[in-house]
């Protein structure tokens, strides 16, 4: 395994993923903002949550890229299409199992079962995160597939 290459391209692909996830929200494609959702697990201050969330997301992405790299190692080396395939699996996991589990893990997120008691909290994502807009699944998949493509294209195993 090439640690230097992982450090550089794992970070680069994570930056791209973070930009795409935040950018798709800014462009009005989705209300989903993963860094913000991660940040609000730590603080209720919306402004600080975004800053902290970006940091958590970068670290998360870096760690996740290690899984991609490990997959490349056992799958005969990196290529762009292998990265895209792993990204697709990753995105599907995030949208299905990840989003379903999030209300139970997130201290400031409402769940579909809440009510009529209310507490100010983030709206739950719902199946495929569709509550955040119908284009959400597409934007999450595109972001993760590009994440995988960058890693698969530029990561060098040796």
């Amino acid at each position, binding site marked *: 395994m090439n640690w230097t290459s992982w450090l550089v391209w794992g970070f680069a692909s994570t930056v791209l993923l973070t930009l795409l996830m935040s950018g798709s929200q800014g462009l009005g494609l989705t209300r989903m903002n993963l860094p913000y959702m991660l940040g609000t697990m730590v603080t209720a201050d919306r*402004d600080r949550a975004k800053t902290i969330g970006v940091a958590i997301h970068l670290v998360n992405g870096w760690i996740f890229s290690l899984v991609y790299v490990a997959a490349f190692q056992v799958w005969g080396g990196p290529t762009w299409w292998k990265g895209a395939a792993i990204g697709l699996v990753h995105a599907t996991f995030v949208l299905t199992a990840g989003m379903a589990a999030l209300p139970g893990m997130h201290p400031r997120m409402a769940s*579909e079962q809440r*009510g*009529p*008691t*209310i*507490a*100010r909290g983030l709206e739950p994502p719902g199946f495929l995160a*569709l509550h955040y807009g*119908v284009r959400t699944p597409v934007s999450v998949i595109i972001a993760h597939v590009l994440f995988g493509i960058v890693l698969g294209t530029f990561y060098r195993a040796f």
Partner: protein
Amino acid sequence: MDYALLGDGRCAALVSGSASIDWLCWPRFDSAPWFGALLDSARGGAWRVTPTRPATVERTYIPLTNVLETRLRTASGEAVVVDAMTIASEETKRDELVADHELLRIIRCDAGEVELEVVVDPRPDFGQARVRIEDARALGIRWHAGTTLVTLRAEVPLQLDDAGAVRATLRLHAGESVAFSLVFDADAPAIVPVLGEAARARIDRSIAWWRAWIGRARYDGPHRDQVLRGALALKLLAYAPSGAIVAAPTTSLPERDGGDLNWDYRYCWLRDASFTARVFLELGYVEDAEQFCGWLLHTTRLTRPELRVLYDVYGNEPGVEHAVPGLAGYHGSTPVRVGNAAFAQRQIDMYGEVVDAVAQVIRITGEPDRETRHLLRDFGEYVADRWHLPDSGIWEPRGPLHRHTHSRVACWVVFDRLLDLSARRLLPEIDTARFSAIRDAIRSDIEHHAFDPARGCYVGDLDTAELDASVLLMSYYGFHDAASPRMRSTYAAVERALGAGRGLFYRYDESRRAGEGAFWICSYWAVEHLARGGSSLAAARRLFAEAGAYANDVGLMAEEVEPASGAQLGNFPQAYTHVGLVSAALSLEARARRETAERRAQPRAEVRP
């Protein structure tokens, strides 16, 4: 409209005056109905409890709750049906498995002997959905529709007939009771509802929850029963996971009996925002107001700063409007529509409603975060470029756009509230000089083009002679003092031209000509105007009492009233009407307090040297 409303903060059911549940949408307000007899008694499905002998019916909510009791008196005895969508606190949900949604009916005999027939006949999506019905014996009768499951359990044997309905005949003696539990689950495996004492405990728990919630209401005025019922109804229309409030839990209840003015109101209209925020805040429900405004600001971000007229409970577009074929409709009023095409209309007045609602909350909770400040600024910038444009206006007619006075006033509200927040150092980001100039320009525009000097009143559309009751909101918004000569003469003109008698008002000239009903909230706008100085407190109270007289036996109100018969029209119950009532009661109370304070201060002033 003889229905009572049940709910659990996510969906709602309507119970008729004869103890039949004729409307139930699971799992969300805007989901397809499982019981839809309200709109088609043959195809819709219902849950009926019918005495086998003739009976008189009397019903009431258990005081300070949304748990309903329907008392059925026959010659041989007296039975009571207790209906609730069971409630569990978030703590309880952490400790025990609770069904996603439960509709619990307990039928007890209080005197003599009563025989009743129970028929449970779910027909998901008006009978259009593919359903698999299974008799799972001890686990109940189960209706599978897609990935969702509805289960019925009861303390008596249930018989499934060939048409897929469940029947049971009860012969109850004094002191006996039987529980029926219908639960909905979308998560598998489903929760099997426990009956016996546990079911009775769930009713008690629901009663306790509602009493604890309404017990926090800060209102001790003379209209306490109406105000608390209004608050309880509003809470039933709130979608707890997001904070959204739906306009009504029904679709296609007609604005003209037998007519085609049938719309789907199971969505969230931004025009209700200002009154809703006021009601929550002044009754002391700051958390509810905050969550509602959080929904207003943050779930609408897909379109902002441009706002849509209405959204679903998660801020998405409502489904495409379409007619459901083959349904009879309420009292023969067709088509039955699902979805709402008003979504894409331009209604510039919404910005005033939203900004006013958020400003009310910020004045209580303090400095908003950066994102909220930027959003408010963006709303201001957006309206600054568009306040002069024609729009569909608050009444959403589907036709040409007009320059509505109410929309102009709402635009004035945008800049007035933003400048007020800026003056309080809560919104430093705005261009105060520019916004101040625009606010003045809007006022000038209204004074020059919306006031008809010949009749001495503000008109509904600029440079026309059309009258519109929405101009009465000028005093609510603080655009004009209610006691000003222009507002007094405007009220007189509106009362003359749009008054429908006995405390009712048509919303505008055209609606009167078209034979629509009187628009109920207009009566409460009139009360607001009078209570704020437009007339005496006694006159305001008189109008308030007249307008409230059309509520049904359990205090619920629709959108409109047919003036001749007093019958309720339109979707039911209507959040807008209820917040109008509560807001008007709060204004009456404020006026009474002010007058009391003035009376107390007067003698001291007179003896002062």
